[in-house]
C-alpha cells in the first residue's frame, strides 16, 4: 500500500544581514546543512527546500547550494524558488533535486509546466500554490470575465498587478473564498487555487503543494477547506502545507483534507515534535506510513 508521506519543509531565505558579507553562500549552507543532515539521518520520507526570496530578488535558483547539499541528502528532495525557465529545472535536477516546486512561474508562464513535464516527466514537476482566504464572502463576488478566460488548455493571463479588488472574483471553495498569491505570498493574482490546480494538472504537473498563507508558521492547523477543495479537484497527489502544529493536524489533513502527504516546517523546528513520532501517531490512528526499522544512514 502506498504510504502517506510526512515531509519537513525548510524555508530558505537569503537574509539581508548575511548578504553582502563575503562567502555569503557558504554561510547559508552553514545553516541549512545541519538541518538537512538531521533529517537525512532520521530517514524522513521526503524533504522540501524552498528559497523564498529568489523570485522576488529576480534571481535564478541557486544550483551551487543544492549541489553542496545534495551529496549529504539521501532523502528525496524537492527544491523550489526562482524557477522561471525549463533550463532552471534541468540544472536543479542535475544539481541533485529529485523534484522541483514551481510557484510564481506556474501563474506567469504556465507553459513551463508543460515543457518541464514533457522533458523531465510529470513526476518531477510540483506546482506550489500559496493561497489566502479573501476578505469577501462568496455572494460579494463581482462577475468578471477574467477568470472565465482561464481555459484548461490556454495559458493563464496574469492579471494586472494593480488588481482592482472590487472586480476580484476568486472561485468560492468550501466555506471561504481563496485567492492565489505569487512572489512568496506578496502578489495577489485574482486566481482561485482550484482553478490554478486544475490548470496545472492539465499542463502536466505531477503534484500540487498547497499552502495556506495565513496559517503558515502559526501552528494552528491546516486550512482544511482549502486542502479539501484541491484534493477534490485534481487526480494528482496533493501535499498539504501551512499551519501544522500537532500530529492531530497532520491526521486531519489526511483524513478530512484528503492529502497524500503532509508538509510542515515550524512544528519540527520550534517544538519537540519529530517526523518519526508523527508517523507513530498516524500509524496508531490507522494511516499507512512507512516504518523504517533498519539502522539509520551514517554520513
Amino acid at each position: 500500500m502506498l504510504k502517506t508521506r510526512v515531509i519537513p519543509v525548510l524555508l530558505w531565505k537569503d537574509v539581508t544581514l548575511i548578504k553582502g558579507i563575503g562567502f555569503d553562500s557558504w554561510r547559508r549552507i552553514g545553516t541549512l546543512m545541519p538541518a538537512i543532515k538531521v533529517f537525512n539521518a532520521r530517514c524522513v520520507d521526503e524533504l522540501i527546500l524552498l528559497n523564498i526570496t529568489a523570485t522576488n530578488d529576480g534571481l535564478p535558483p541557486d544550483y551551487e547550494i543544492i549541489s553542496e547539499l545534495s551529496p549529504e541528502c539521501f532523502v528525496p528532495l524537492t527544491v523550489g524558488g526562482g524557477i522561471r525557465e525549463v533550463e532552471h529545472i534541468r540544472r536543479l535536477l542535475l544539481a541533485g533535486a529529485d523534484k522541483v516546486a514551481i510557484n510564481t512561474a506556474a501563474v506567469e508562464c504556465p507553459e513551463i509546466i508543460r515543457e518541464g513535464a514533457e522533458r523531465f516527466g510529470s513526476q518531477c514537476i510540483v506546482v506550489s500554490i500559496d493561497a489566502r482566504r479573501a476578505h469577501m464572502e462568496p455572494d460579494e463576488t463581482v462577475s468578471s470575465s477574467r477568470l472565465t478566460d482561464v481555459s484548461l488548455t490556454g495559458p493563464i493571463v496574469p492579471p494586472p498587478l494593480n488588481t482592482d479588488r472590487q472586480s476580484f472574483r476568486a472561485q468560492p471553495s468550501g466555506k471561504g473564498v481563496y485567492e492565489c498569491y505569487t512572489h512568496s505570498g506578496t502578489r495577489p493574482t485574482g486566481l482561485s487555487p482550484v482553478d490554478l490546480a486544475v490548470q496545472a494538472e492539465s499542463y502536466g504537473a505531477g503534484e500540487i503543494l498547497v499552502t495556506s498563507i495565513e496559517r503558515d508558521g502559526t501552528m494552528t492547523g491546516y486550512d482544511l477547506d482549502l486542502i479539501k477543495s484541491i484534493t477534490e479537484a485534481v487526480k494528482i497527489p496533493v501535499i498539504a502545507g501551512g499551519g501544522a502544529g500537532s500530529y492531530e493536524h497532520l491526521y486531519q489533513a489526511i483524513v478530512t483534507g484528503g492529502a497524500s502527504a503532509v508538509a510542515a516546517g515550524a512544528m519540527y523546528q520550534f517544538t519537540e515534535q519529530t517526523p518519526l513520532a508523527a508517523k507513530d501517531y498516524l500509524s496508531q490512528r490507522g494511516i499507512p506510513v512507512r516504518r523504517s526499522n533498519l539502522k539509520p544512514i551514517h554520513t
Partner: protein
Amino acid sequence: MNVLVIDYGMGNLGSVRRAIEECGAAVQISGNPDDLNSATHVILPGVGSFADGSARLRERGWRDALHRAIDRGLPLLGICLGMQLLADIGEEGGENPGLGLIPGEVRRLVPDHPDVRIPHVGWNDVHYVSSIASEKLFMGIPDGTDFYFVHSFAFRPSDPAAHLLATTPYCGGFASVVGRGAVFGTQFHPEKSQPVGFQLLRNFLSQ
C-alpha cells in the same frame, strides 16, 4: 570494482554516485560507451521521459555497446526510467523503441480505484514473486519492504514467469523489479530508499 554510471543527460546522477560510494565502490560517471570495457558493473539511472531517454541513448551509441557488454556478462541495473528503457517499447512521448534488453513494454499506470492518484509518488512495498529476487537483489531485505517510487509509467514484461522479479500493489499491481540474467531493473529509486536501498545496491554490486 569499477561502477560505470551512464550519463546520457537525464536526471540526478549525483545521488546515484553518492549512494554507490556509500556502498564502498568506485564510481565513474561516463558519457562514452567505450568506458564499458573497463567497468565491472553498469548503472542506467534516469529521470525524464521515455522518448527523450531512448533518443539520447541511441544517438550516443549506448544501445549497441550495452548489448555487447551484456553479452559478455556485465551486470546492469536500470533505475526508474533506466529500468523502463530496458524494454522493447515505451508509450511515453509517442511509441519509441527501448534498448530491448528485457522483453516487454512500458505503459501508463491506470488507476483501479477513484482514490488512486497518478503519478505514483512515495513509499510503497515491494513483494518478491521470484526466487531470483530474494537470492540476488533482496538478500537481507524483508519481503514487503518500502522503497521510494516516483513515476507514471510501468514496465510490463512479455514473459512474467521468466523476467518478473517483484511487484508493488498500486493500480492493480505493477512490475517493480524485472531481471534477465545479469540485467536488472527497479522501478523504485534504491539511491533514494535510504538503508534498504543501499542494501539492494550492495547486493547488485556483489553480482
